[in-house]
């Protein structure tokens, strides 16, 4: 790398690079900046042009009102509950199963794993109807259990964790076995601590997907007290269609948890993608 850089006549290229980067950043961030700015405005000022990015008199009341106009607190609680349960279940069961698929031998291992792989490519929309009917038969529609069952046992999690475990040398497990450690012990004491990047990747994926899920709750939850924040915001839009300031404030609130998790784990996330065999 240093060799190459010294030889290049850099200046113009570098300026062009920074200009492009600036342009991309603006494209990516402008909608969020606009959202934040609109969340602090009166509805009539939201579309004022030229855009006033920093409102002269920020209307913080918007962020107070959203909690009373709709049961936003309840929606946040519901979503948080679902997301945490699903993420924990997903991490536990996926890494548990992945250990067997990566490090143990048992009859029908490859056939079972193939079933997992085949369903990854299967669009959810292909089986969302039978799944719904099944949940209805089990009496689980209009309950959070339906969404937990729907999202806690994905093939993707098992696949991702297995890919990571394959890269851990077998000798490590072998040595532990000779020392008399049980398979459960190996999973808990060796595999889990080693797989932090993969677990972080799976955490972000599951957290973000469950928190942001829209179609699942739309189909399964009709009772207001069960709804999640994504459905709540939509309800808000249809009920208070013109109150842009409030809608934007609620949207900002819905983005905060994802932003936090993402910023905390994003280093692992990039590493995780890089180390789980997606390089081809």
């Amino acid at each position, binding site marked *: 790398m240093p060799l190459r850089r010294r030889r290049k006549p850099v200046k113009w290229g570098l300026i062009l690079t920074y200009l492009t980067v600036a342009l991309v950043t603006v494209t990516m961030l402008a*909608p969020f900046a606009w959202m934040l700015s609109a969340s602090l405005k009166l509805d009539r000022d939201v579309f004022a042009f030229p855009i006033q990015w920093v409102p002269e008199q920020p209307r913080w009341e918007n962020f107070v009102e959203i909690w009373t106009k709709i049961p936003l607190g309840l929606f946040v609680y519901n979503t948080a509950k679902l997301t945490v349960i699903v993420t924990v279940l997903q991490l536990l069961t996926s890494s548990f199963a992945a250990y067997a698929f990566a490090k143990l031998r048992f009859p029908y291992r490859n056939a079972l794993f193939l079933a997992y792989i085949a369903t990854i490519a*299967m669009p959810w*929309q*292909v089986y969302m109807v039978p799944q719904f009917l*099944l949940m209805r038969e089990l009496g689980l529609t209009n309950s959070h259990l339906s969404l937990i069952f729907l999202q806690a046992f994905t093939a993707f999690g098992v696949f991702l964790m297995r890919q990571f475990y394959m890269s851990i040398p077998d000798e490590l497990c072998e040595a532990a076995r000779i020392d008399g450690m049980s398979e459960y012990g190996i999973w808990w004491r060796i595999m889990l601590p080693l797989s932090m990047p993969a677990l972080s990747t799976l955490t972000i994926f599951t957290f973000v997907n469950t928190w*942001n899920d829209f179609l699942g709750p739309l189909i399964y939850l009709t009772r207001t007290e069960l709804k999640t924040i994504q459905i709540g*915001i939509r309800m808000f839009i249809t009920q208070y269609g013109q109150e842009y300031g409030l809608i*934007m404030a609620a949207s900002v609130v819905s983005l905060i948890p*994802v932003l936090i998790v993402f910023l905390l784990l994003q280093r692992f996330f*990039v590493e995780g993608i890089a180390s789980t065999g997606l390089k081809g």
Partner: protein
Amino acid sequence: MSASTPATTAKKTPRVQVSRRRRRVQNTLIAYSFIAPNFLGFLIFTLGPILFAFALAFMHWDGNTPIEFAGLDHFWKLFEDRIFQTAFWNTLVFTGASVPLTLVCSLGLALLLNQKIFGRNFFRTVAFFPYVASLVAVAVVWNMLFNPEYGPVNMVLYNLGIDPKDLPRWAADRHWAMATIVMFSVWKSMGYFMVIYLAGLQGISSELYEAADIDGATAWQKFWRITLPQLAPTTFFVSVILTINSFKVFDQVYMLTQGGPGTSTLVLVYHIYNEAFISWDLGYSSMVALVLFMLVLMITIVQFRWSQRGEEDLS
């Protein structure tokens, strides 16, 4: 793949030989105990419904009355259903536009942010953020930004001197609605594929570039002769995922246009959703879903074959 198990390592000692069979059964049970918690859920809530979906495609059912065998009724109906044909075509248009665009944008972004520039990590995070942001929230913003009457995008275009009559009406216009959804989708997902491309770029050996430098290759030559061919497996992976995703497009459509105006953005999944949860024609909805599945399967096979040939050419 060649994981050696306790059974094979302990084979040599005769004392263990006696209980080898029991040991093997025990090992199998341990292995099954590992997969059971996930597999049971997966079997009941994913695998089962998938098999049921295939069966439903050949049944008449509204979810309440007894199920009746329909044979190929639903299959023949596909050929008469104009809305299905529109949805099919719209899905292809969406795919044809969004896949190459996302591919080029995410590769460009990755090349840009793979350079050693100031604040590189910050820019990567920024580019990735739309992907993790809630679709509902960003779709609302998008709708407001692209509002035909008073959205900032059209205001900027107006101030650039475009006649108000010629301003695109975006999601509200038959001819622009699909383009709006494509733009939105590319914007939302390019950061994710950028990360995958970045991982691919880091996998390219720097020796290749050093050798090219010695031969006096230009940046352009290095890109076409080294970077792009080396990224072929990544591009294959990304294009498969992108194509599959774009066949499954729904949320964006539901949030931005509800399939309209008219049927201009009605896509396959939207049709499946309508037939299932609005008309309660579960058999027919499953048949359309089956078509979607066949499409995904076909693309996967075609792209897989193509990539294998590509790799042979390289070696």
